């Protein structure tokens, strides 16, 4: 057990922005006078890498939120809860079976089921009343928060991935944690799969039609109620997946739900609501902005994230890449 804890410590340390920053500063101090340019470049590269891998995680959370908005015109305020629940369910699976690999699908499908039930039993009966539906998702966010406290206590936990993934690899003199590369890989895989389904299949076409104009879609015989159930479950699935994967370096703790929610919103708003490609670009922008913001001007780092979001919303409410 102590060994595992230590490995988590090391993982978190290699991943943490602050440590990289101090490391870069120390290096810069040590090599002052003799070619700080290389260190500077390395610092920027590592920050960019961290930003992109964080963006990969944000894509998982943001894409689901974006699709749900596109199809149902509601903002799901329980989306952060799905993220957190994903992490918690994964922990339970790891505690009982010891398998991290098993924890990923179990957590994602469990939370997808929760999302599906929530949509079918509670949101659907409200019909087309976005405000009440949104308010209802707030209620569920609270309910989930309390249930999580009751079941998993208020202690913070870490999800420890297999030792293979905690290594670092050296690329061009840069020490890159393998786990972050894995995160990028997962996001790429999910993104590509979603894109293929959306663009190349009949189901994808019906989803796109529903996003564009739900009323017309119903008119031509598309079962939009079925589509929204599907998308809601998919969104929950993706958020939970993000929760498991992100649990390795964000941790799993009470309050993470409402910390993740506004960041996911930033992704969706910058990228544009209801657009998959937009979510990818939004996730990348937010991931990078968050990393560089915290490294360069920590005092106003959150401000630099949310102020552009508010400005974009005011100027173009559908987001930078959203369709009118």
């Amino acid at each position, binding site marked *: 057990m102590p060994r595992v804890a230590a490995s988590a410590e090391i993982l978190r340390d290699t991943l943490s922005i602050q440590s990289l920053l101090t490391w870069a500063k120390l290096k810069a101090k040590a090599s002052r006078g003799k070619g700080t340019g290389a260190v500077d470049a390395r610092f920027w590269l590592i920050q960019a890498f961290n930003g992109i891998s964080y963006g990969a995680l944000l894509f998982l959370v943001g894409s689901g939120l974006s699709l749900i908005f596109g199809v149902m015109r509601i903002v799901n305020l329980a989306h952060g809860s799905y993220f957190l629940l994903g992490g918690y369910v994964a922990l339970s699976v790891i505690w009982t079976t010891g398998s991290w690999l098993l924890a990923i699908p179990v957590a994602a499908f469990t939370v997808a089921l929760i999302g599906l039930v929530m949509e079918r039993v509670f949101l659907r009966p409200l019909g087309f009343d*976005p405000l009440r539906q*949104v*308010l209802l998702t707030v209620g569920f966010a*609270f309910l989930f928060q309390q249930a999580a*406290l009751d079941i998993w206590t208020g202690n913070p936990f870490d999800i420890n991935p297999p030792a293979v993934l905690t290594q670092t690899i050296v690329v061009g003199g840069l020490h890159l944690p393998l786990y972050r590369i894995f995160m990028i890989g997962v996001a790429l895989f999910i993104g590509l799969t979603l894109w293929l389904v959306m663009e190349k299949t009949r189901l994808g076409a019906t989803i796109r039609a529903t996003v564009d104009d739900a009323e017309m879609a119903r008119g031509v015989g598309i079962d939009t109620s079925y589509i929204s159930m599907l998308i809601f479950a998919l969104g929950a699935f993706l958020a939970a997946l993000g929760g498991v994967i992100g649990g390795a370096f964000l941790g799993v703790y009470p309050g993470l739900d*409402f910390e993740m929610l506004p960041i996911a919103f930033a992704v969706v708003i910058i990228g544009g609501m209801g657009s998959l490609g937009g979510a990818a670009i939004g996730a990348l922008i937010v991931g990078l902005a968050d990393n560089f913001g915290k490294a360069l001007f920590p005092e106003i780092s*959150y401000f630099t994230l949310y102020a552009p979001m508010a400005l974009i919303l005011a100027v173009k409410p559908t987001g930078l890449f959203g369709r009118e």
Partner: protein
Amino acid sequence: MSMSRDRVKILIVVVALAAVALLVPHTTSFIILLATRALAFSILVMSLDLLLGFTGLASLGQAAYLGVGAYLTAILAARYQIGLGYDFWLVAAFGMLGAAALAALFGLLATRATGVYFLMITLALGQCVWGLAYRWNSLTGGDNGINLEHRPKFGIDLANQVTFFYVVFGFFAASLLVLYTIVRSPFGRSLVGIREREPRMKILGYNTWLHKYLAFIIAGAFGGLSGVLWAHTAGIVSPENVVLTTSVDALLMAVLGGAGTLVGGIIGASVVLFIREYLSTLVHWWQYALGGVYVLVILYLPGGLMSIPERIRQWRTAQVKSAAAPH
């Protein structure tokens, strides 16, 4: 008919509030504290209700204005010893003005949007304020926040629990009165018109944007007042007061009590605080009670707890009618 029914409603509210003011000081100190908190926070809830219930704009960033009032109070008191004597009234006015100024700035962006877009833009703006409170250590004390050592003393000593309760009660009653006057004024009526159908109001020649903008600023000002009181109630101001969950709390309380009723705010605040602070000491399943009550209200009582009497009356008339109807 409707006039007299309104009078009855006002009478009920006045009697209920008078009962609260008379009875609460004779209870335990825990309940006095709880009531003081509920009253201070419910000013924020009422400010949100002006937007949500009357103008149809669901704000998810109302905690920002509470934050401005609270931080202003705390920074002035802790750093400069301002606001601990008679100048408390000055700080209260400052808190309202500061929050109104922020709302005037934010409103320029937010009132361009409606529906869920308004919700998201207010969320983003609220997060801006939270980000500053959380990270701007030199000004806000960062995560630790700012402690207020003493409550103001001006002729009366607010350190006394009962005295402080009455002061907060006074502010609450005054806010309720002012907000009620606003929503009953022609200005308030046109807000309701905007909520119901904005294009029609535009056609009728109303500058709907200006109406919404003014409502946003007024709501901000009362949010600031709530913050000034909250700072002295809690004795500490931290990013916790500005975080998204605080805004969500305010929204939850407004909807729970009944959006568009103003007094629903104090009912919602009382119920939520009661469940969270009091029920939690009695039973372990309290955690589900809050979310459960809220979900049930959204599903079955869209008018909130305040609509229960109306519901009962409707149900009764339906019973009478079905009994009288010839078969």
